[in-house]
């Protein structure tokens, strides 16, 4: 494997984790808005 491929292999995981973080935060924001609109609880 080339140095570039090895670097990508090590650093791709934090990038994916960041994307997951964004997805979860957006989803939580939507859940909170929906709960407020419907007068229900989050959990």
């Amino acid at each position: 494997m080339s140095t570039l491929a090895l670097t990508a292999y090590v650093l791709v995981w934090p990038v994916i984790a960041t994307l997951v973080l964004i997805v979860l935060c957006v989803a939580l924001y939507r859940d909170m808005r929906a709960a407020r609109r419907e007068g229900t609880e989050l959990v």
Partner: protein
Amino acid sequence: MFQLSTTTVILLMLAFYGLTFLMSLRIGKKKESVDGYMVSNNTIGFGMSAASMTATWIWAASFYAAASSGYKYGLSGALHYGLWGALMILFIYPFGKRFRQLAPKAHTLGEIMHARHGRSSQMILAGSNILGSGISLMVNFTAAGALVDVLSPLSFIHGVLIAGVGVLSYTLWSGFRSSVLTDFGQLMAMILAAVIIIPMIFFQLGGPGLFAEGMPRLTGEQGDFFSRTAALEQGAPFFVAVLAYAIGNQTIAQRLFAVREDLIKPTFITATIGYASIVIGLGMLGFLALLAGVQPLEGDLNNLIPQMAATYLPPFAIGLFFIMVIGSLSSTADSDLSALSAIVMTDVYGKNLARGKPDPTLMLWIGRLTMVVATAVGVIFASMKLDILTMLIFVGALWGAIVFPVIASLFWDRVTNKAFTGAVIAAFAMFLVARFELLPMQGAVGTLFELCAAIGGGVVIGLMSFGFFGRTTGCVLGLLTAVVFAPFAVGFLRDYPVLLSSLTAYGVSTLVCVGLSLSARKRFDFDSIGERVVAFQTH
């Protein structure tokens, strides 16, 4: 090695558990419902449920074990831990959908088995989960003690006590609802820490230049992305073990019963990706340590991650690392407390002591008392620093023995209580013989076990294919795998006792379960499960 001061560690832990406690106060009710205490409202949204599933699946040992695997097996090591662990979350999804379809108001897996078969099957699941969650609780408290011991002047027991009291304080009143809510915050902290720490250590070690310098240090197997040693010694046994863990585990089942039914799929897919990215990413630290020629302190691979953090990170990042590990162990420990309380409330009190007519108020207090007792026991056992490996092996095997009987019971109407119980007992007994070599694994005995294990390999592939592609594909691929695997297994698997014993448990449980079920003529009406498994409180 750098250490945080006593004041800093106490402030960090107070801030972490204080904030978590404040979060839990926001949802606290004077009168909690028993169903809410165990599975919330069965309609939790995507963001909260995906975060909770991810946080629960990641425990403190995930970081240490993934890094150890990266250090020991090199290039593919972290993948052989994190990828299989992640895929198992995905694997539960089709079966989880079936559990929800059959019993939308379930609280525990044992409760479903009670409705399907009766008491002995229920108690096998309840007992294995009490043992499993008890051990998990102890492991997580132990991890807190070890972390505090390594990174601060405080002692091991201080860490254990603070974690025990901290986790209990925010979980006790609202149970599972607190666990899910706080999981979100804990996962955010974990991800943020991982995202900062991984690149920081990579560039501290020299960045891309590390590869040119470090690759010659690796053995041929360590430098091979398709390493056979890594696959056979780490990947395959772990794959088989986590499959069992995923299916039999109450902490995962509880979240499955809690999420809104139409969100099960995206929840499980997101949790799979989230788990893989965090655990494999941190496992890469082990690979980097190998490239840099780092020697683990006292030769203990569990020291690798704290050692890397303390050596290559600035103080503020060590604080982040500290919070990451405390977050991971707390999110799993609160899930274990919630699982234990749900099992005692439902399987012990609700279905047995109260004979299906429980008093909700008493039931709730039984759940809370269970949490207090479980925490006390967890703290006491953690402080004794027992060797937990043997106990974990027992639980792993017990769960390996129940995977096929549990799944078959919920899809095949001919499986009986006798078939379920007989299959689990036979498989567990055969596992013990193979794992501890109670008989010499040679000649005809060795061959017999290897053939059972080959069938077990077929069962694993068959079940996975069945979940995603249906019965025909599952049966064909399972049979094909067993037939192709058998000639390779004979004379070979006896050198890998962990893999041999785990696969034997799968193979024997399937053979006995199928054999006894085929000899029975009774058919079961699956619709009756939903009628028997209902909410304990309607208001």
